[in-house]
């Protein structure tokens, strides 16, 4: 696909020339510590932890999109399929140096999956062996929030959630992204 190739080229170039690199283990350990701390703070209520991670990601995404647009210097995406390619081959590439595979499109082009072959956030991680974490905790849930926050700032309301994770013993790590609607310019309700 042409747009996919273009996105891959842009991602590669930005990654090589315009991104400051940081030690991967620093990122892994920092993120891991945050999740572990959240787990103790919320008394191993994993639903709460997931929600907090998503919220943190949302706040990151809202800022990160500006940085992303500045670095990549790309224009508006023509359709949601282009957006998906951009997310995978430019977004994930320049910030995490991974390119998740975009796949499993629904017929209406509003829903796709991102398959993560590798996940730098989850290196070394083994979920707590308490019989619940494997079923309830989405360790990398911050990524869902980041996508939601970032896309919201460019007029796309989406829902993102993990549906499987190798940490839980699944074969793949898969995130499902659904386009809810394009946000039109809306006047504030009490504006003239």
């Amino acid at each position, binding site marked *: 696909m042409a747009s996919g190739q273009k996105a891959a080229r842009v991602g590669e170039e930005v990654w090589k020339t315009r991104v400051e690199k940081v030690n991967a283990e620093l990122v*892994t350990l920092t993120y*891991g510590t945050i999740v572990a701390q959240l787990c103790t703070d919320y008394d191993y209520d994993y639903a709460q932890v997931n929600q907090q991670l998503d919220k943190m990601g949302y706040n990151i995404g809202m800022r990160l999109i500006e940085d992303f647009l500045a670095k990549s210097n790309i224009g508006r995406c023509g359709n949601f399929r282009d957006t998906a390619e951009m997310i995978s081959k430019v977004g994930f590439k320049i910030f995490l140096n991974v390119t998740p595979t975009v796949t499993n499109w629904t017929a209406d082009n509003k829903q796709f999956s991102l398959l993560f072959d590798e996940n730098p956030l989850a290196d*070394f*991680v083994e979920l707590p*062996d308490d019989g619940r974490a494997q079923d309830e905790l989405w360790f990398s849930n911050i990524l869902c929030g980041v996508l939601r926050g970032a896309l919201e700032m460019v007029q796309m309301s989406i829902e993102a959630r993990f549906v499987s994770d190798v940490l839980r013993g699944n074969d793949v790590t898969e995130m499902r992204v659904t386009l809810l609607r394009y946000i039109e310019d809306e006047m504030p309700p009490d504006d003239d």
Partner: protein
Amino acid sequence: MSYYFVIISPADTPLFELTFGTSKAGGDGVPRFRNGETARYMNQFIVHAALDVVEEVQWLSPNMWLKVIDNYAPTNSHISCFLTGTNVRFMLLHQPSAITTASAGSRSSTISSTSIPQNPTSPQTEEAIRQFMNEVFELWVKTLMNPFYTIGKPIKSPVFRQRVVGAGRKWL
């Protein structure tokens, strides 16, 4: 040869324990300690006593791998030690199987054999244990990097256990 492996924290609390038998030379991987039923606590006792020796030996060498540092003659047990940078000790008690020594009647004939399952002090055995320790060290570092593991707590991870068992099967 039968093995008892234990990881001991800097505060002298055991973090991980494993007993296994040799898988070399047709071994079935099942430990057969000479002291039978009492082995479970006797091994702990012997290794615990060896910690004093570790404290003496560790300052004499710059290496993490301290080789055989102690032995316990009544069961012909030898204790090897690997020391990590934070003073966590990997202790391995190895004991040649009773049958060979009993049939040989003396220790000298056991020593003449160099195979890993027979001879606890041959260079081959020492090398195999060193390799085993290094592999466990690598696994250990990975375990420490897991954000859900608390330093100084017993290692409960089934993955770690399974991999240590794998290392034992591979080298010992």
